């Protein structure tokens, strides 16, 4: 038993050291900054310790930004689930020997630059863009196109994060025993009740893992909202970015980063052990 423990930890040690130095230590520094009064030019935290940054971060003035961020992240997760589940199910069930190729096909678009993809959507959603033109044929076009709207941001985020939903969902769908569906039909359940009572619980580990991979990163993304939503659509991520890049207020930025970390930990705890094997 001890030998096995030693062997496992020896194999994990390089990863642990790397993450300890270059991920955990930086996160600890952020927590430290969040309690500082202000920072000096060389980015040293200045004492005394204070919770002022958290008071500012939780000020009602930031409520619309909280709300907008949650709306974007929630809608993106829902959209990724709606699009990703049929895709994952189809590839796992009907992909046959093309499964690998189909999964690869899901990933290929993501080899182009992230920014170029956002700009592609910008071009497509523009007033003169393809979407507006096609919708114009049936009289559904809009003056100025669909840019700078909440919908455009959610669309861009969904596009960016879809693979992170599809991959864990695919793993869960592949493991799911499809005979359970037939059994459920034989026992007299209809399609809807079979889906909610048999299929969904069966792939729940994938749903949870995928949602985790989409929800929090989407809440932190600031590039997509900035480029597709415009300057007024600030989100949690963009406020954090402003505090650091402008050098404006590191403690406030850190406090908001810590709040996002608390959300991460909360979701990890809620999820518990379910789906741990998928992620």
């Amino acid at each position, binding site marked *: 038993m001890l030998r096995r423990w030693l062997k496992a930890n020896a194999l994990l040690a390089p990863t642990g050291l790397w993450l300890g130095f270059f*991920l955990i230590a930086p*996160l600890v520094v952020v927590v430290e900054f969040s309690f500082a009064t202000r920072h000096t030019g060389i*980015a040293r935290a200045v004492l005394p310790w204070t919770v002022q940054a958290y008071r500012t971060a939780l000020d009602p003035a930031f409520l619309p930004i909280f709300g907008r961020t949650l709306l974007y992240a929630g809608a993106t997760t829902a959209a990724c689930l709606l699009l990703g589940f049929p895709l994952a199910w189809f590839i796992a069930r009907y992909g046959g020997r093309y499964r690998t190729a189909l999964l690869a*096909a899901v990933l290929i678009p993501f080899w182009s630059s992230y920014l170029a993809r956002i*700009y592609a959507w910008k071009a497509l959603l523009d007033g003169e863009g393809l979407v507006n033109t096609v919708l114009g044929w049936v009289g559904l076009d809009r003056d100025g196109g669909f840019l700078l709207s909440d919908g455009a941001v959610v669309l861009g985020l969904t596009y960016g994060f879809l693979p992170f939903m599809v991959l864990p969902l695919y793993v869960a769908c592949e493991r799911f025993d499809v005979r359970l569906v037939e059994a459920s039909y034989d026992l007299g359940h209809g399609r809807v009740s079979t889906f909610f009572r048999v299929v969904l619980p069966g792939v729940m580990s994938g749903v949870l893992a995928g949602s985790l991979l989409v929800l929090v990163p989407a809440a932190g993304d600031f590039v997509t909202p900035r480029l597709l939503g415009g300057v007024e659509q600030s989100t949690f991520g963009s406020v954090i970015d402003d505090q650091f890049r402008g050098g404006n207020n590191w403690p406030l930025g850190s406090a908001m980063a810590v709040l996002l970390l608390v959300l991460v930990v909360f979701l990890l705890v809620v999820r518990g052990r379910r789906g741990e094997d998928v992620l």
Partner: protein
Amino acid sequence: MNRRPWVLGAVVCLVFLFLYAPIAWLAIASFNSSRSLSRISGFSLQWYAELADDTRVFASLQLTLQLALASAVISTVIGTLAAFGLRRAFPGRGLWTVLLSLPLVVPEVVMGVAMLGFFVKLAGVPLGFGALLFAHVAFSLSFVVVVVRSRVSGMDVRLEEAAADLGASPFVAFRTVTLPLVAPAVAAGAAFAFLLSFDDVVISSYLTGVGSTTLPVFVYAQASKRGISPEIVALSTLMVAATALLLIIGVGIASWRARRSGSAAKLAL
């Protein structure tokens, strides 16, 4: 019960359309004769010609490739070791899993500002290639572990035991049995790590130093000033085309090998 899933198939086609429409549009726009991305006015190769002449793009492309390669190699090696470490249950495995899931779920902006604070505060690490490499490995590692681990945990231990019973030393058993079985997953993990590093904007934007701008950061800086340039669109098109080609070749070789050597190779796929 397995009727042909027409409705599902149609939905899947629509999702693929959603995935590929922007890419297709980028490809078309890269041959546009005007600067506009939204209105196509004619065919031209001028953006590809300008791309070939742009030394700044090539300098940052070179740096980005070096960085992505180094990051992929390091994270694949130590991530694969970690995946094997997690193979069997031991006290504390749950904690390791939580640690490894952090880089997957912590938003990039949080990691970026944390690393900026850390590297600046330590002051020992100047911004630039070193800082970028530390950061890129830190956020790619977990993806390698996840991909390789799914393969390792699905592997039949009895195959290695059989090799040992037949007289193979642990090293020979690893090289001839274990490694071929996990190789596809290791390759997939490496590709993932390379891609993550190659395309990262947010974290890199905090850590680039003077003269060490990665391509995505360069593009972001350009794009936020005056929109994306058609050259970058041309470059993206070339990248997608190259990847698609590589994948087609890879899948082709794999299925050819599978047909030739039957079920043994299927195991490895």
